[in-house]
């Protein structure tokens, strides 16, 4: 079995466990410790930040401008709007400044 296939299937099992796991495990507890809950709440933002920050570190002006515009647009618009705005800035600036 190829590595890619292994990653996909293991990822699928891990994902299914998160979808059924809350029902099987978390719902048995009357209360979750507030610190654990605070940590769990932070997981998605913390993980996703690590995928943006280093990319910004090695980015050029076109990429940084795209991130900045996208961040500003996201304060008002939805995910799709911010994504299209960022992509448009990126493509335009790469076209003009290479």
């Amino acid at each position, binding site marked *: 079995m190829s590595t*890619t296939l*292994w*990653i*996909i*299937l*293991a*990822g*699928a099992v*891990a*994902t*299914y466990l*998160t*979808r*059924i*796991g*809350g*029902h099987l*495990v*978390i*719902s048995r507890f009357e*209360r*979750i410790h*507030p*610190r654990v*809950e*605070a*940590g*769990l*709440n*932070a*997981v*998605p*933002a*913390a*993980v*996703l*930040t*690590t*995928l*943006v*920050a*280093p*990319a910004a*570190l090695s*980015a050029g002006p076109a*990429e940084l401008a*795209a*991130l900045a515009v*996208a*961040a500003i647009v*996201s304060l008002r618009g939805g*995910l*799709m709007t*911010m*994504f299209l705005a*960022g992509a448009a800035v*990126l*493509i335009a600036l*790469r*076209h003009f400044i290479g």
Partner: protein
Amino acid sequence: MSDRRGEFWQGVRLSVPVVVASAPFAILFGALAIDNGFSVAEATLMSASIYGGASQLVGIELFGQHVAPWLVVLSIFAVNFRHVLYSAAVGKRIDHWPFLKQAIGYFFLVDPQYAEAERKGENGEEVTFAWYMGMALPIYVFWVAESALGAMFGRLIPNPHAIGLDFLLPIYFLGLVMSFRKRPRWLPIVVASAVASMIAYKTVGSPWHVSIGALAGVLFAAAMPVRPEETAASDETVEVVS
């Protein structure tokens, strides 16, 4: 019977905006998967078996950086970890289904599915299997088909750099980060993760910046003093616990 059919179509109607909004991301996923070394079949299988957009995009991004396989899987798990809270909440609504139907239902528990099921339950309506699958099936079928389509067209793109293909993912991930900004201590958590991941990226090197940065943010959140009003307010995940 006709009642069940009505429930099913009510679910289908709710799926429409989700199908429309997720289409570009499914196509993007397919194209980027090819760009990062997946085959069309592998990209399609990933959409069909994992069925979680953000985690799939994280997976192919790290795969393209030649990160250790177990770390790719761990990152997929981490991004999908929020489903644990959805699962605990929706579990109360679908407890009356037969076991097999519950097992099937949990597979399709993506963000919008959770949101609509919670809404229906809170309105005092029964969350039926017909309604649930009426919403789930169109989203799933379109997601998988559009991923395959994106993968097939992804091979035809002559100059991925010119259309920004290599940098679309950081923009998308930034959007997801921003979408959590209502959560308690969001900004300091993001700053902690950003600083830790950048330092790790420069010193220890990729792929460890992902685990180190994420851990920094999570530990920071857990170490902060607990303010009583925060545990009881403002976030969709809280009612799960109380």
